[in-house]
């Protein structure tokens, strides 16, 4: 698949944006600035970047509890994200949703989701809506390995394939559902084989190789836009942190330090940086400046969040229903 230089840089920039954002959350969380639950995406950046590289603002994604990377790659504004994580009224959800419920209909983010496997039927509905309305919008549906055991996976892939809906199912196989290793939650290794049960193509790629993800999802998006139906793409990757911030020692209860280290050596970012430099797509100084500007962007997001107000208490009662004028 041919890829423009600008797109290569976008991939790098997006992965770095996710990386630095999550590292900042890790730090802020440790210092108690961010309340609630934070499920970090560190180590998995290549999946969100490679997948969303094919989408425009009119396309849709459904995300998960581990959703920061997905929404950043789909174009979310770090200021509003940060403010949401702080619970400020200037956040994406006026502070009502927090980390697990970031949404922005304007750019096709149909919501992170606190229910593991909850996003799949919603993605199918968005795909149906695009097909019925006759647009060429594509929906990318992110979910994890353990979430592929939820019945919603089965019902969603069956329905999407039956009606040849423009949906790309992207399974992020990071080998664990919280503490439960894949070997303990399903009897298979490659989740992509499940596609055959729905007469759907399925493919497994190295989720730490952003170009591999880009290729596989690219073909799937083409099929979807051409009306040829959905695809299941499995990306093998790994989360560096614990399931959530607060999971002791990056999940030491159920993973070895060695395993974590071996995956850190497969860090998708330096790996891609080397490729860019050797392929003369960018100089390392250029990449440095990218990082710098993103650092600045994040600093501004934190300032924005800090400077914002908490919602006023009357907000507790608003938005339960949408009340149009006159209703």
């Amino acid at each position, binding site marked *: 698949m041919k890829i423009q230089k600008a797109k290569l840089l976008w991939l790098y920039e997006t992965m770095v944006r996710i990386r630095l954002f999550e590292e900042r959350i890790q730090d802020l969380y440790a210092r108690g600035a961010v309340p609630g639950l934070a499920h970090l995406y560190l180590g998995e950046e290549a999946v969100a970047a490679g997948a969303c590289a094919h989408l425009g603002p009119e396309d849709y994604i459904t995300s998960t509890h581990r959703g920061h990377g997905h929404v950043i790659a789909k174009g979310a504004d770090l200021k509003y994200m940060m403010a949401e994580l702080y619970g400020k009224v200037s956040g994406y959800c006026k502070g009502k949703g927090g980390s697990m419920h970031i949404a922005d209909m304007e750019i096709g983010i149909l919501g992170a989701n606190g229910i593991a496997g909850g996003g799949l039927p919603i993605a*199918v*509905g968005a795909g149906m809506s695009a097909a019925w309305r006759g647009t060429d919008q594509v929906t990318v549906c992110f979910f994890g390995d353990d979430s592929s055991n939820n019945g919603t996976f089965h019902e969603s892939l069956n329905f999407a394939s039956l009606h040849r809906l423009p949906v790309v199912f992207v399974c992020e196989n990071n080998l664990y559902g919280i503490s439960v290793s894949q070997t303990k939650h399903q009897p298979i290794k490659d989740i992509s084989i499940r596609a055959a049960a729905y007469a759907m193509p399925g493919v497994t790629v190295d989720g730490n190789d952003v170009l591999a993800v880009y290729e596989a999802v690219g073909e799937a998006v083409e099929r979807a836009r051409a009306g040829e139906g959905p695809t299941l793409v499995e990306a093998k990757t790994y989360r560096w942190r614990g399931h959530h911030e607060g999971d002791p020692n990056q999940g030491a209860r159920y993973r070895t330090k060695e395993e974590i280290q071996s995956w850190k050596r497969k860090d998708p970012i330096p790996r891609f940086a080397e490729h860019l430099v050797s392929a003369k797509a960018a100089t390392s100084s250029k990449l440095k400046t990218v990082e710098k500007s993103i650092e600045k962007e994040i600093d501004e997001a934190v300032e924005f969040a800090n400077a914002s107000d908490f919602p006023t208490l009357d907000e507790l009662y608003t938005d339960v229903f949408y009340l149009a004028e006159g209703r």
Partner: protein
Amino acid sequence: MREINYADALNEALRECMTADENVMIMGEDIGLYGGVFQVTKGLIEEFGPKRVLDTPISEAGFVGASVGAALTGLRPVTEIMFIDFTTVAMDMIINQMAKMHYMFGGRGRVPMVLRTNIGAGRGTAAQHSQSFHSIFAHIPGLYVIAPSTPYDAKGLLIEAIENDNPVIFVEHKKLYIEKGPVPEGRYTIPFGQAEVKREGSDVTVVATHAMVGRSLIAAEQAAQKGISVEVVDPRTLVPLDKETILTSIRKTGRLVVADEGHKNCGFGAEIGCLAAEEAVEYLKAPVARVASPDTPVPFSPPLEQAFIQDEKEILLAVEKVAQYA
């Protein structure tokens, strides 16, 4: 005015809305060629085609969730769950997604969808096809819960539900589908949150829902012969609830009977009874009485099922009991 039955009134509402707005679509099991197990969608697939009248696999979580996603992105799905008993398999999509998105997202995104289903025992279909747990949905913020008792209300409330930009649980009643009543042609709506006094009276207030409304009107007639004047109030929508109309009646009569087909414990009857105790206790001349389904599963055997169903007899007994208090 011409009379048509409740199922046909619902069918007209669907046809009206699908004709008026091409984004309105319906989906569910056997709603196409079969016309729905209660014939509510009869003829619609012929008129609107298989995309806007979509037969689904047995995947309630999948297609209710798909309805949510479609509603978020420009369609207005009206989705049928064959029996309320089966909403259980889609409960996450209803409680955690459909009901909460508008709030969780801080007002971003709307979910203009209607989930049609039905309650009611009396057809010999036993414990998994006869339940009436609509009160569960009233306990979950973010859902409108509708309870039509007549063909007229059924049509007007369903059009309102489809045109409403919020998620609606539209709870029909099996035994009412073949009941006839006057229904205007064309479009009309009944606003949510407006109870209707179906009969005026001065001695006892009966707040009744669904089939209990008709049963209460019969009981009221019988009570009248015994010199008891009964007022029958039909909330029509459980959420939003027209507390004022209900409380005004209770304050007038000082005696309350609540007749709802759901189980007694933590049901809609409890809510109305508690409302009286909170906001009209000084007017109560008698204990509140609930006429509700017993707290047992629905039995199959005809005599047991008949004993399970509370009708005009039990309502009249309750009315007479509370009327004894001066």
